[in-house]
Each structure stands twice: as structure tokens, then as C-alpha cells.
């Protein structure tokens, strides 16, 4: 319902708005990461747009293969998605950008906390889960995971089976008894799939 926002963005920023579409009633603009903050400032301050409420901010990792990288029209690997709402005008817009190369080098984006202070914790979450660093954020620490955690779990390169325990697990020696799971829990129940053994071959009679 805010085609006007897309029109205004294209008019104001020209080719730096890489793509716009309005599918299923959702208006989306994909912009260059360099103008991320300027676009947001414009969306907030233009009297016809008046986006005064940030709804959500998240990171989406797109898997990289060489073929995909060659096909790629958009720059970057980690997509950052921002949803905005205008309380006064009752319209929404979705803003996207892509940052970081295959090794997440240069995954940096201007912080929007000076525009909407409510984005403080959301930017911390995107940093924690996806590894995007926000320039100018007042307090860019992990918010969900513990400080000792290494890596960013929602990156697709994070191994699915990898856990980082803060206390050492009991071993048979330290417990003084077998620590296998009892029935009805399988020995590997609750363990990440990568640590489960391969399915047993059929029994031969």
C-alpha cells in the first residue's frame, strides 16, 4: 500500500535503488548498502512517508556457490531486511540490502539507532546471529548467545552439529558410572544430528 514510497525512493536515489517490487501487497526496495542510512533518514523524514516505527530487522544468509556467485546480480552474501511502518499514514515498506563477501569480509552497515533508537537490540541480535557489524552502534555486544560463544550461529557456514558448552560434559570416568541414555531415550537422543551414528545395517538372520 505504499507504492508511493517506492516511487519516491527511485526518484530520490535513482540507480542506487537496485530493485523494487510489490508482490502480495508487500512493497520491497533493495538498495545499495552504502546509502542504507540515508534511505532510512529519508523514509522517516519525508512528510508523505513518515515511517516512524521500525517493526523488525533481521539477517538472511544466502548460500554461496561459485555458480551462484557468477549468476548473482545483487552484491553481498548476508541480506539485511528491515520492515517499517507508519503509524500516521498506516502503510508499510520493506527495505533490503546485501553485505559481506563469501568470508563475511566487509559485512558492515551503518547503524540506524540514531534514527530509531528502538533498533538498538535488533541490531545487536543481527550482529549476534548473523555477524553483521553496525558502524556507530553504541553498544554492539552479543545479546542472545553468551560472550564466550565463537562464530555466528545463523550463518550457513556454522556447523549444524557444533555446540559450545560452558561446562564440561560428564564422562564415564568423572561420573563413575555409564552415562549412556536409558530406554526409551536412544543413546544419541538430543545430540545434534551430525553426531549421530550412521543407520545400522539390517540384521541378518
Amino acid at each position, binding site marked *: 500500500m505504499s507504492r508511493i514510497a517506492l516511487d519516491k525512493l527511485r526518484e530520490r536515489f535513482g540507480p542506487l535503488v537496485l530493485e523494487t517490487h510489490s508482490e502480495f501487497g508487500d512493497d520491497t526496495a533493495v538498495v545499495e548498502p552504502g546509502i542504507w542510512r540515508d534511505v532510512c533518514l529519508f523514509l522517516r523524514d519525508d512528510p508523505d512517508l513518515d515511517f516512524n516505527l521500525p517493526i523488525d530487522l533481521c539477517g538472511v544468509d544466502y548460500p554461496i556457490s561459485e555458480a551462484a556467485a557468477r549468476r548473482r546480480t545483487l552484491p553481498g552474501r548476508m541480506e539485511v531486511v528491515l520492515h517499517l511502518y507508519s503509524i500516521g499514514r498506516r502503510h508499510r515498506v520493506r527495505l533490503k540490502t546485501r553485505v559481506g563477501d563469501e568470508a563475511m569480509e566487509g559485512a558492515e552497515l551503518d547503524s540506524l539507532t540514531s534514527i530509531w533508537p528502538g533498533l538498538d537490540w535488533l541490531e545487536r541480535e543481527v550482529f549476534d546471529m548473523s555477524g553483521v557489524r553496525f558502524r556507530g552502534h553504541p553498544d554492539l555486544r552479543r545479546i542472545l*548467545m553468551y560472550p564466550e560463544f565463537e562464530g555466528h550461529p545463523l550463518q550457513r557456514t556454522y556447523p549444524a552439529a557444533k555446540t559450545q558448552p560452558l*561446562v564440561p560434559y560428564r564422562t564415564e570416568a568423572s561420573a563413575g*558410572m555409564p*552415562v549412556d*541414555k536409558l530406554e526409551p531415550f536412544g543413546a544419541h537422543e*538430543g545430540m545434534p544430528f551430525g553426531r549421530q551414528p550412521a543407520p545400522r545395517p539390517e540384521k541378518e538372520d
Partner: protein
Amino acid sequence: MGDLTGREGLGDERGARRSVAIDGNEQGFATSRVDAMLGWARKYSLFMYPFVTACCAMEFMSLTGPRFDIARFGAEAPRFSPRQSDLLWVVGTISQRQAPVLVRIYEQMMAPKWVLAFGTCASSGGFYDNYTTLPGIDKVIAVDVYVPGCPPRPEAVLDGLLLLQDKIARGVQTPGVVRPREDPVVRAAELVRLRRAPGDPRALVPLLKANAPDPPAGDRRGGIA
């Protein structure tokens, strides 16, 4: 329970003999072992520390409420200091971030102490098979009784408590698992048969009840593995 109401059996020989003993006219003694006495005393005075982190708490509330009434088993007194409690109830998912807290709570409890893993998440991590969840609290602390279920029914938890009391009385250290009271697969098969039956299915209900298998005697509260 007839002997507790005092109404029936008053006139019979057993009631008469008991009334003599109560009056104190007859003297006697009983023999026991100290550890058996201690076990008997401990199993009916479990002071619980509820370590409640997730949705299983709903079933835990119902367990401590009047309908299922854990007070019947002498285990209703919560102590929110681990130093005063015997029984650690771990109710819900434990994340990796919370595991050190759980270990610290456990280490502050005085021996003898027991741990009950309430629900599948506490027992094995459940479906949280990921970077953030501890795959079962037995990865970091010793567990005495596991109660599977997502969440377990209060009856299952009471079974687990009785199993624990049994273990305490017998001085057994090995962990035990509460088994389901009835096999849900059998029950589902019965329901499917009922649905597909020709004619009025209500006519089959008494038949189903009559055919329901008795739970195996030793299996109701689960065995000690």
C-alpha cells in the same frame, strides 16, 4: 483404604487387635536397620527445589495443585534455597548458557540429594537439537529419575516420584525412567478400529473397555534399569 476410615472392620478381629495396641496396653518392639529407617524417613520428607525454565511448568503447577496434590507424598514443600532442599526438579529446557547455573545450584545442595528430570527436554534435550540447548541435563549432573513426555502428564510425574521414593527406600543409585502407563500405539489402533467399525460405534465401547489389557504389575511405575 478401609482401615483408614475406621468405619469398616471395627467390629472384626483385626480392628479389635489394633485398638488394643493404640490403647497402649500391649507392649512390643520392632526391629529394623538404620539405613532402612533413614530411607523410610527421607522418602516421605522430600524438600524440593523447583528449577523451572519452560512450558513443563504448567504441568508442574497442576502437579502441585489440589487435583494431583503432590502433598500426598510428603514432597510438597518447596525450598527456594538449594541448601535446604533434597530434591532438584529440573522442569524444562536447559540452554548451554544456563548449564553453569544448574551445576552451581546442584553443587550447593547437601547430600543426600536427588535430581528428577521433568519432561523430554530436561531428559534428553528433546527436539532442540541445536547449538544452544544442552542435550539432557545428565550431560552435566547426575539424574535419578527421568520422566519422559512433552510435557509429561501429572500422573507420570507422580509415578516418577514414587519410583524415586522406592529408590530412596532401597538405597539404589542407578537412574530410572518412568515408562508410559499404556502403550499409545495400542490405544491408537483401538481408536482406529472403533472409527472404522460398521454400525454404531458406541456399541463397541463396552467391548473395548472389556478388552483393554491390564497394565503389567511390575511395569506401572517403570523399572529400575
